[in-house]
Each structure stands twice: as structure tokens, then as C-alpha cells.
């Protein structure tokens, strides 16, 4: 351990603002990317499911007319 106390660790030898800004933005943007990427699959499947439902409704209506 390079730091004597937790407060010293947070202070980063006086560079707290720059170090934590860098780490903060890094993990925030990676987190956002991961969440957006993980949601993609659900969105795509929901769209396809909607399309299938629409197709089935069309098929039923066509059947009623005849």
C-alpha cells in the first residue's frame, strides 16, 4: 500500500481532481456503453416480435374476408 490513510489515497498527492476525473469518466462511459449494448438484443427481439404479431393479424383479417 502506497498511502498511509484513506484520506491520503483520495487526495492522490494533490492530484485528486485530475486522477478521479480521468477514472470517473472512463468507468462512466464504459458503463454506459455496456448498458446500451446489453439492451440492444432485447430491443431487436421486441421489434421482431411486434412484426410477427402484425403479420399474423394481417393473415387473420385476410381469412375473414373470404
Amino acid at each position, binding site marked *: *500500500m*502506497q*498511502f498511509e490513510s484513506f484520506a491520503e*489515497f483520495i487526495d*492522490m*498527492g*494533490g*492530484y485528486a481532481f*485530475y*486522477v478521479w*476525473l*480521468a*477514472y470517473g*469518466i*472512463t468507468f462512466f*462511459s*464504459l458503463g454506459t*456503453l*455496456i448498458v446500451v*449494448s*446489453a439492451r*440492444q*438484443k*432485447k*430491443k*431487436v*427481439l*421486441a*421489434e*421482431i*416480435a*411486434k*412484426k*410477427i*404479431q402484425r403479420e399474423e393479424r394481417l393473415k387473420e383479417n385476410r381469412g375473414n374476408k373470404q
Partner: protein
Amino acid sequence: MWKWLHSYADPERAYKLAGKLLPWFSAIALGMIGVGSIWGLMFAPVDYQQGDSYRIIFIHVPAASMSMSAYMAMASSAFIGLVWQIKAADWAAAAIAPVGAVLTFIALITGATWGKPMWGTWWVWDARLTSELVLLFLYLGVISLYAAFEDKVLAARAAGILAIVGVINIPIIKYSVEWWNSLHQPATIKITEESSMPMEMLAPLLINILGFGVMIGAITLVRFRAEILARNGMRPWVRELAKAEGVK
């Protein structure tokens, strides 16, 4: 061997293989980045010139070097897709692009927050920084070209050509610190000679570089799977999956 490899160009098999690999990639990436970052932040020795501000290196260098590796991976995929007309390669390229763009963004931002305390400025228009900014624009160009066409075969061709032409920027980034005078320091990790860095600093850095690489793999797998589903919406296996999981 080629026959075996070729079977993974089949969308369903590629989708399943990506799903099988994903938990391993995620776990390894999480472990390595966790260890590398905590080691770098808490246990690596203080730099005698830069004090604790140098600890930004443990994310800056991995993000910057992997932003270039990701670009090469994307361009190679795009090349395979263009030449051999393997659609799965086009989808892989489309999956990597946003990941690479975020990494490039991180490399630029962490570079700025390191530059401010050390150089006294957030930004300078020198060769290394400018060429890395061009890399970000190349990624954004590839992403928007792919999104601009309704016909994704055409979209992949257009985006792929831009990706391949943009490869010229990669050696420019890599050698910019040697070809031109730059505020940016030259590479500290050398493959052919001894690195100008003690082992206690080098080890967490290398762990994080590898960790970032595996993380790109993991996020790309997630996006690749979604891309396969989106491009194969008419196939029976995707429709079954949509019926099972897509309905709320």
C-alpha cells in the same frame, strides 16, 4: 480447417458460439481490470517526477493502445467482409466500431486530464493528439455510414471501405511521437528492448492493457449477437427466439 472455420459464418452458429464465449470474456475482463486498476491506484510506487498524477497511465495507455487494436480488428473484419462476402464479418465490424469510438474518447479525455497537471494544458494540436482525434472521427464516420443505409449489405460495403482507407492513420498515430516533435512522451513499453519502467508499475499496466483487450472482446460479442438477430429477423430460429423472449 477452413471448412470448420466457415461453418461459424452461419448466423445461428455464430450467435450461439458468441453466447458461449461471452461469460468467459466478461469474467476475465472484469477480473483483470479490477486487479490492474486497484494495483495501479493503490500499490504501484509513486513516480519520482509526476507524483501520483501518473496513475492515470493505468487507464490512458490501455484505452489508447486498444483504440488502435480495435480499429485494426474492425478494418480486418471489414476487409474479410468485402473480399470474401462473409456477412458475419461485416456484422462483427459494425459491432466493434462503437466500442472503439468509446475507447478513443476515453484515451483523449484521460490524456487531457493528465496533460493539464503535467503540461499545463488540456489540449495541444500536436501530431499524437491530433491523429488520435482523427481516429475518433474515423470511428464516428464508420458508425454513421453503417447507420445511414437501410440496405445493410450496401451500408457494410460503404462503411467497410472507409474503415480500410482509415488504416493509414494507425501508423501515423503510432510513430507520431518519433516523426515529429511532440509534447507527448514516446512509448515506455518496448517489445524489443527493456522497458523504461520498473516492474511494479509495468505489471499492473500490462494487466490493464490485456484486460481492456478482453473487455473489447466481451462488449463486441454482446453487440455482435444483437447485430446477428437484427440482420436475420426473417429466419425461423430468430422468429422463435423473438416469440419466446421479445413479447412483453
